[in-house]
């Protein structure tokens, strides 16, 4: 019988990084070494601990990384608590890649890019950011606006400081919600910060974060003159099969697992408001 996508592969967790108090980044390779499968930026994978649960996570590492995949996971439910409690060397099951991806090879090519992320929302964008960094000549200016509750809640802070900020031609603007000792950067919510920064309206925007942040940032962008056709986001709903058959992650007639998770806002606008 042919392989079935519902039968997962084995992945080995080779590194666990405590990113923030409630976010850990897990490095996963196949038992034989190397990546379990290839993916494109924005695509997802179903990770599972048999007997505990299975859920969809965005692949946070870039496809240009040829050695391993990474997942930045916030502890918020049953499965994620288990993942947070495990040690290096643990095997998990993994299947994918699922869903569409950010159009890095088409619409985004040659464009000036503005990444806007809030909290754990950086996870899916990190894949694109590093893909763009590794194919730098294919894209124009890169600006990253990233905010979190506090300095400690900024995911991948070390990579942001050591690598992204060190790159020429990448502007990184960080903000935290409230003043904090040891933080001399910007303080304030992401939607307001974006308006203050007043980015050029020629930029193509990729945004991910809590729904409330996305909502206010989007209206702010519109005030600045951006149109919905310029803004991409990535969605998340409850999923079981990850291939558009189990019937629960739909927004209208679109399945987030299969037709998404990446949507342009003008596409979302045509769908019912149920997410």
């Amino acid at each position, binding site marked *: *019988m*042919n*392989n*079935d*996508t*519902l*039968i*997962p*592969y*084995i992945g080995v967790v080779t590194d666990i990084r405590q990113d923030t108090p409630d976010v850990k980044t897990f490095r996963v390779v196949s038992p034989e070494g190397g990546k379990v499968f290839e993916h494109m930026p924005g695509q997802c994978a179903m990770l599972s601990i*048999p*007997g*505990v*649960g*299975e859920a969809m996570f965005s692949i946070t590492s870039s496809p240009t990384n040829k050695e391993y995949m990474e997942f930045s996971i916030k502890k*918020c*439910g*049953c499965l*994620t608590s288990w993942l947070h409690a495990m*040690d290096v*060397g*643990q*095997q*998990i*099951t993994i299947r994918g890649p699922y869903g569409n991806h950010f159009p890095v090879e088409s619409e985004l090519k040659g464009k000036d890019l503005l990444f806007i992320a809030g909290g754990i929302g950086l996870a899916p964008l990190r894949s694109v950011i590093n893909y763009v960094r590794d194919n730098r000549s294919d894209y124009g200016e890169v600006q990253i606006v990233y905010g979190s509750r506090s300095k400690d809640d900024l995911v991948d802070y070390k990579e942001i400081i050591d690598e992204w900020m060190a790159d020429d031609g990448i502007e990184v603007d960080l903000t935290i919600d409230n003043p904090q000792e040891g933080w001399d950067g910007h303080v304030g919510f992401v939607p307001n910060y974006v308006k203050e920064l007043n980015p050029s309206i020629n930029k193509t925007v990729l945004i991910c974060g809590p729904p409330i942040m996305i909502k206010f940032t989007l209206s702010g962008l519109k005030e600045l003159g951006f149109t919905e056709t310029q803004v991409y986001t990535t969605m*998340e*709903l*409850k999923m*079981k*099969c990850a*291939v558009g*058959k*189990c*019937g*629960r*992650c*739909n927004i*209208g*007639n679109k399945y987030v697992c299969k037709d998404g998770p990446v949507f342009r806002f003008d596409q979302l606008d*045509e*769908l*019912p408001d*149920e*997410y």
Partner: protein
Amino acid sequence: MLKISLDKLDKLFEAVSASQTLYIPVDREDGAAEYKKYESGMKLSSALNTVRSAKDFFFPQTENLVDFKMEGKNIEVIDVREESEDFVIFGVRACDARSFTILDKVFLCEPVDSYYKNRRDHGTVVTMACTRPAETCFCGTFGIDAAAPEGDAACYSDGESLFIEAHNEKGQKFIDSVASLFEDGDTAKLEAVREKTREVLKKLPLANLTTDNFGGDKLNEYFNSDKWGELSESCLGCGTCTFVCPTCQCYDIKDFNTGHGIKRFRCWDSCMYSDFTKMAHGNPRLTQLERFRQRFMHKLVYFPANNNGEFGCVGCGRCLSKCPISMNIVKVMKALEVK
């Protein structure tokens, strides 16, 4: 057309069941009908339909997807799939036969669901034309002719004999395997029976129900309709409609620790259940209104939007007779319809 006398049906069933598993609808003590594995002496039910639809044969209520063995930090994945044995489902009605076409669109599109395909490949569907449709029937709304069912092979009764014809290779193979029991028959009387059935179909109370005003192009209009509150207000949030429905195919995946390993199951799920879309961090469908709306939007708008206008309903009428509060797709269509 080939025919066999109705009083020789048990000979036919014996012959079929000698070489493969045969399922036929039989009457239960409580008056309802259900599909059972044929054993000598069983009589074909004359009921219009079974309580549970025939989808069970290809999409069972529960099935084992895969097993896992956990040892220390290691996991072993055990593929539990086995090639299905050949089987025949006899006496499927036109509505249920069409439901397989609808299920096919979900399970056989890429990536193909191997569990479903396995059973579909090995199952032969022999249908039976209806002669006494009920008031709850509205298969005609979806372009189904109860007097001429689809399926791999179809049977028709004129009250004395059972006539059979093949619709494809699989059906022909089935007929060939039992051809010695059949003889050539005159279909004149049969034609009269079929004509009479079609006359009855025209007189049914739901004969004029159409899908003309439904489909993918009415997405936001119907989603935002102010009728959903009233329609869903007495919905119990049970899964009766979804579980008796031949086209409802949403499923859940659950793990079960047997003590000797983990079994991963797939089971029917219902969009009417409160946990259907519940995630660790929230639920986009918080009240029964949203869940109720999802079920009917799926059948009348989303499914046709994604499947060239084909609706996710076959008009079998099971939800009409089984919903504890008698709310159903017909009432929804009539209340919702914007001309």
